[in-house]
């Protein structure tokens, strides 16, 4: 970052401001400008736009199979926001929170002046825009906190995997979605505000977030002059980043309770895996496994009977590791059985809802062959985890 640029932000030499007294079409080539948005602010702004766009597209539109990309986008957004907060205490005049966060009285006065069309032109954030910045930063932090909670509780991974139950993670998921809509609303207001202020002050504000410079006009409302401390800021950001990464990784290493048993019992894997993928015992309750093992001579249209010794041994193992013993998403969502066919997974309401969009030809294709062949697309089916990022529909099946 350029030190000189940031220390020059204010004040401008007075002998050059006279031009601003002229009536000014915004295209005036001789218009004096001053640096407002430093390189950090501009990079931060557009990188955050990119990260939030990816987060919103993967979260709202592309869905769970894009979870990994969603997490990357979210992580980048948090890193950016934290760095921005540090810069808010160490940057130059226009970057500092102290320069643009107005008290309630000043904010109300600004809004009233806007209504009377007598509001002054703020070169940095105006009081309403300043609050918007705080709301946006806060909202993104809340999204990160709730997102990490969902990741831990529902997907049993990440820094909070060891601490959050499925039920809590699942409830927080609803909050995360509401906050995401809230962020979209704030972004809409932010853009509307930028357009409004661009029209009101006859200056292309989105463009100034690229060039970093704004016109210098008489009567401009400027924040108190402050020097930027880019070196100390970078140091704090690096130290904070290293500390945050270390804490996150250390937490993510903590053992996660109530995970599905691994590996599968060899007899189970062989006896059940002869005809179909060996379904993980955590996918159904003990009661439903007992029902299934009591009717092996008529098992989904085939005789799958076993000698009693093997049958009992397998049933005991399945019951010992059934859905009740784990806290995974599959164990919870498949708990709601279809009363007409309680021992089927593909008949459950959750299975039907989540596979509705997949065309029939995919299931009939060679590499998949049947709806029960979970492992054709869920690469981790045998672990009982069914992590969304491990879904990969074979290319051959989509032709």
């Amino acid at each position, binding site marked *: 970052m350029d030190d000189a640029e940031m220390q020059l932000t204010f004040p401008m030499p007075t002998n050059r401001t006279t031009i601003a007294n002229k009536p000014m079409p915004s295209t005036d080539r001789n218009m004096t400008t001053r640096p407002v948005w430093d390189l950090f602010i501009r990079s931060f702004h557009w990188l955050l736009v990119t990260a939030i766009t990816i987060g919103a597209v993967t979260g709202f539109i592309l869905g769970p199979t894009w979870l990994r990309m969603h997490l990357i986008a979210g992580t980048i957004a948090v890193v950016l926001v934290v760095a921005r907060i540090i810069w808010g205490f160490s940057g130059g005049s226009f970057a500092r929170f102290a320069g643009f966060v107005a008290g309630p009285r000043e904010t109300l006065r600004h809004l009233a002046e806007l209504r009377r069309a007598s509001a002054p032109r703020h070169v940095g954030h105006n009081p309403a825009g300043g609050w918007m910045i705080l709301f946006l930063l806060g909202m993104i932090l809340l999204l990160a906190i709730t997102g990490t909670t969902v990741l831990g509780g529902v997907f049993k991974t990440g820094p909070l995997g060891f601490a959050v139950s499925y039920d809590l993670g699942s409830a927080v998921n609803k909050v995360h979605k509401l906050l995401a809509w809230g962020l979209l609303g704030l972004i809409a207001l932010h853009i509307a505000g930028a357009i409004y202020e661009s029209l009101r002050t006859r200056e292309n504000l989105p463009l100034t977030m690229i060039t970093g410079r704004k016109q210098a006009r008489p009567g401009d409302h400027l924040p108190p002059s402050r020097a930027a401390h880019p070196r100390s800021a970078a140091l704090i950001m690096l130290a904070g980043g290293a500390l945050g990464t270390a804490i996150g990784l250390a937490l993510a290493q903590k053992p996660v309770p109530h995970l599905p048993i691994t590996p599968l019992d060899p007899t189970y894997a062989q006896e059940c895996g002869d005809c179909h993928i060996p379904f993980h015992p955590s996918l159904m309750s003990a009661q439903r496994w007992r029902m299934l093992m009591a009717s092996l001579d008529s098992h989904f249209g085939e*005789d799958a009977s*076993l000698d009693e010794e093997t049958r009992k041994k397998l049933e005991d193992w399945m019951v010992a590791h059934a859905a009740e013993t784990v806290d995974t998403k599959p164990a919870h969502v498949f708990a709601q059985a279809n009363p007409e066919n309680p021992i089927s997974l593909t008949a459950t309401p959750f299975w039907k809802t989540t596979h509705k969009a997949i065309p029939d030809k995919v299931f009939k294709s060679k590499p998949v062959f*049947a709806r029960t062949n979970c492992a054709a697309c869920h690469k981790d089916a045998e672990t009982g985890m069914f992590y969304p990022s491990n879904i990969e529909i074979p290319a051959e099946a989509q032709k």
Partner: protein
Amino acid sequence: MKLFPNLILSGTLLAVALGAPIQPAQADPARDAIIAQFKAQAGVSSFSAARGKKFFHAKHAGGKPETPSCTTCHTNDPRNFGKTRVGKVIDPMAVSRNPQRFTDPKKVAKWFRRNCKTVLGRECTAQEKGDILTYLSSI
């Protein structure tokens, strides 16, 4: 390493590689014992590969409609890989392609019990089982 031992090693490997396919896949005392037991149960002195072939390829009634024949899952050529009704690959049934076939009495009993019930709706007779094993050992 010297050249001489290298030559010996290569020669041995070559001999093993050449010799391996010559060994008869069919002969296996465990399989012979299983077939001998079916002979005793059926009270016959020999089985017919031709009858086994006919039975293997025939469409049967009495079982589940989805599985009228052995070939439903094992395909028309037992030397091929088969597929269960949910897509799991089944190793070839022909002993020439899969020397492990019919050497474990418990496994043979389990699958005849299951599959005869599914395809025919009844257990197979010792005569039928012996014919099928003779057929699948012959190809």
